[in-house]
């Protein structure tokens, strides 16, 4: 419970009737206390308890049901956008089985491909083919872990880092520059490139941090603005002499030297690379930082109650700056994966895709806890990898994955809604308190 995100002062507690009963910390405690005594007279079996808990609105159940809800909406989108299937609905009263069959075939095939592309393909004959979905999933997961952690760390420090995208861009820029400009030996080169990526992000995080600490300028606005400044910087940089690939006329940079590339995990055709190991390491490091370090203690105190932190002698402004620097460095590391890993070897205007914005969703889905974020990144990575297969095999475009991701987060952000839809019991872990609600 200590890990819950919560606004600093009690007057911000949600009070819509449904939520007040469920979301407020004190209330859930009481609700639980109230329900516990009634349990004994029913003499529950272990299995029954398990089922009851499963159907309680705890974090896991809400997440799972959000996924289910999102997939249902996704299925509806698939059906209404398929003229052939839609045609069967024209005579649904005459032959409902047609409509149902056609819809089922379409949806089940698509989601099967989503699974086959991300987890395991039963039809795989070689080891490589069997490992391929996992490898793809891990490839997409790695950068999301970093950007997710970036957003989560800032969130825990009471700041909303919408700027992971821009920080990742600055990270990828510096990592790439270090990757093809510096003539360094194997190993060292990679290390320098990775650190350069972190540095790029850190600088981009420092700016909103210092502005917040010094002038009180809202970090949400500034990070959004810096995202776009980073984009334009990248598109400008790519076409400069010495950066642009001399053999190309379009906007692409020279490729990163082999000595600065992250080694592959499963050998050549499979794309999974050491970035995922780094991601696990960094997740551990962030978990340590948050829970076991003095800085983490300060950060959490400032995030939860800046007034009390200040009264206890913690420098709130210093903490804000440090939080943003660390968050930026994490996002920068995430960005550096995009050129040092196997996704791309050179800078292009869209080299980092949406990893920064996805990081926001990942952080929220992971309840802003480090390992939760890693798990959420894994889910998003899997959706991405599976989405690729779904696109090529079922012709369901990759955007559906974006829709699913957004929907999942919308549902988990409003647990009261999920609870109402599925008639869940209230349970103590049922709160994702996203309402930092600070305004500008």
């Amino acid at each position, binding site marked *: *419970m200590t890990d819950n995100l919560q606004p600093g002062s009690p007057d911000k507690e949600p009070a819509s009737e449904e939520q007040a009963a469920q979301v407020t910390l004190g209330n859930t405690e009481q609700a639980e206390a109230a329900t516990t005594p009634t349990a004994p007279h029913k003499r529950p079996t272990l299995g029954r308890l398990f089922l009851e808990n499963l159907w309680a609105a705890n974090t896991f159940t809400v997440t799972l049901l959000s996924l289910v809800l999102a997939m249902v909406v996704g299925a509806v989108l698939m059906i209404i956008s398929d003229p052939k299937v839609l045609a069967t609905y024209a005579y649904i009263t005459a032959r409902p089985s047609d409509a149902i069959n056609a819809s089922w075939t379409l949806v089940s095939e698509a989601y099967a491909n989503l699974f086959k592309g991300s987890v395991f393909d039963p039809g795989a004959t070689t080891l490589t083919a069997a490992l391929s979905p996992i490898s793809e999933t891990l490839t997409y997961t790695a950068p999301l872990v970093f950007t997710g952690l970036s957003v989560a760390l800032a969130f825990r420090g009471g700041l909303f880092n919408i700027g992971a995208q821009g920080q990742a861009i600055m990270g990828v820029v510096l990592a790439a520059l270090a990757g093809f400009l510096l003539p360094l030996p194997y190993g060292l080169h990679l290390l320098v490139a990775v650190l350069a990526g972190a540095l790029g992000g850190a600088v981009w995080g420092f700016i909103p941090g210092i502005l917040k600490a010094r002038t009180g300028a809202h970090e949400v606005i500034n990070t959004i603005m810096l995202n776009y400044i980073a984009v334009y910087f990248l598109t400008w940089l790519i076409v400069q002499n010495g950066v642009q690939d001399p053999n190309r006329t379009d906007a692409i940079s020279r490729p990163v030297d082999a000595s600065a590339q992250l080694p592959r995990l499963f050998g050549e055709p499979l794309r999974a690379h050491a970035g995922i190991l780094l991601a696990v390491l960094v997740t551990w490091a962030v978990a340590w930082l948050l829970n076991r370090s003095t800085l983490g203690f300060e950060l959490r105190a400032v995030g939860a109650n800046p007034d*009390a932190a200040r009264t206890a002698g913690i420098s709130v402004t210093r903490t804000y700056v440090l939080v943003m620097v660390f968050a930026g460095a994490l996002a920068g590391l995430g960005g550096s994966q995009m050129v040092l890993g196997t996704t791309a070897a050179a800078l292009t205007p869209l080299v980092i895709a949406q990893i920064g914005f996805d990081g926001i969703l990942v952080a929220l889905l992971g309840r802003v806890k480090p390992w939760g974020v890693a798990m959420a990144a894994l889910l998003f990575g899997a959706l991405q990898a599976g989405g690729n297969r779904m696109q090529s095999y079922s012709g369901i475009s990759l955007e559906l994955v974006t829709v699913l991701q957004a929907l999942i987060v919308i549902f988990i952000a409003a647990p009261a809604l999920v609870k109402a839809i599925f008639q869940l019991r209230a349970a103590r872990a049922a709160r994702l308190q996203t309402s930092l609600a600070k305004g500008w």
Partner: protein
Amino acid sequence: MEPGEIHALLGENGAGKSTLMNVLYGLYQPDEGEILVDGKPLKLRGPSDAIAAGIGMVHQHFMLVPVFTVTENVMLGAEQVRGGIAGFLDRRRARREVAEVSERYNLRVDPDAMIEDLPVGVQQRVEIVKALTRDVDLLILDEPTAVLTPQETEDLLAVMRSLKAAGKSIVFITHKLGEVKAIADRITVIRRGKTVGTASPQASRDELAALMVGRTVRLTVDKTPATPGEPVLEVAGLVVDDDRQVRAVDGVDLTVRAGEVLGIAGVQGNGQTELIEAIMGLRPLLAGTVTLDGQRVDGWSTKKVLRAGVGYVPEDRSVDGLVKEFSVAENLVLDIYDRPPFGRGLSIRPDAIARSAKERIEQFDVRTSSAHAPVGTLSGGNQQKVIVARELSRPLKLFIAAQPTRGVDVGSIEFIHSRIIRERDVGTAVLVVSSELDEVIGLADRIAVMYRGRIIGIVGPETPREEIGLLMAGITPDPAGDAPATEGSDSATADVIPGGAATTDADEISSETATTDRAVTATTDGDTVSGGSTATTDRDVAATTDGVASGSEEPGSKDEKA
């Protein structure tokens, strides 16, 4: 309530005055009882019902939009419009109305001024204009003078008189005796949510104060005479502004010696908060010095002040004292998490923190399910014990406790008090700030009374409480005396016909002066230390014992008769 009557609702902080009036204005729903207007029961579902019934309210925290003009604020919710569906505001008409009302009751409000540019007193008059343009018959003023300067208070009382002359009824909520006597036709005293008596304004201050504060059970704080040593904290000429850049502390001099408790009494909002925050390095000093053990500490960071051996219990535990989401254990090390044995280098030692938490929880009798429970799940008293435990767990030179027992149960109060005295007895200088007079009297060896940013008197704890109560209301017993006396005499001047403070209520004041001369000393005089063996104080212990010795108890106190 009669038409054209000013009815004062008198009571201490937290006595339930504001809650009652919020019910009357439809903001809260009553659990029981009913409201009668013109003999008919009235059901208020919201403020609009109250307005329709002719009830207007000026809230303690003004309900004005700061970036709107006076006219816009007055119009809001009852706009005069032209142009049919488009609903263009008829500003001219509204402006005229504001000017008219302002003129009629002599409110002197500029219809075009921006609210945020206006001083508090004028903002309050805007609130009154707002109510008057809605044709209210009954106007509720919730602690209207709490935020006003003496001059503004006087203006307000004049306005109330002219409203009364116009036949409006006024409910005037306050805890300031002087104002009540100056203006009220009838007085109802409320304590702990119950009416404890009604009085006429002719009742003496002593009578009113007794009713208001109550005297039921005697609660004692066992303590031996203090053995004051060297001065530990010296504050000289301190000047501090509050958040709105208004002068809150205006030249305070204080000395706290090792082994004594200096209590600061005073009505909330007279600069106590800002004074303490300035000492702690939480608020910038505009002038003056703070010296700790001979060393200047003004300008130091809070961390440095704390590390220099100052313990601090902030007045609002949920805002400044605790991180509610943190566990009890974490809150117990909130200001020493980076010091051995809790922090080493960059890391914190959760085992050391947990171990020490277990000890503290036992020592300070904190009732919690575990050391890892979020502190927000604890009761108020136990939360407060967590803070006290934290601050008393390291060697201190100075211990500052602001409102140490606010919202805390009786058992915890006793415990916290005994710890404070124990801290004094080991030779720590202790500074206690409380708006509970009983608490200050019980704990302190010397009592400094703060009024409008100044210390207007330092007295011994054996001084009669009514007398300290008068000091808290800004009335110094020595009318011809020094600067603080004239500064603090606004309540007295309120009922003054031009002629000067000395003539006002002459008999009453002079009689009190006679009884208090021995104990009251000048501000700078620091050696009036209590010599009593066991100081005993009056404490009204919760509602359980309420009514034992109180005055006429009126049943159905929620009824308002018009």
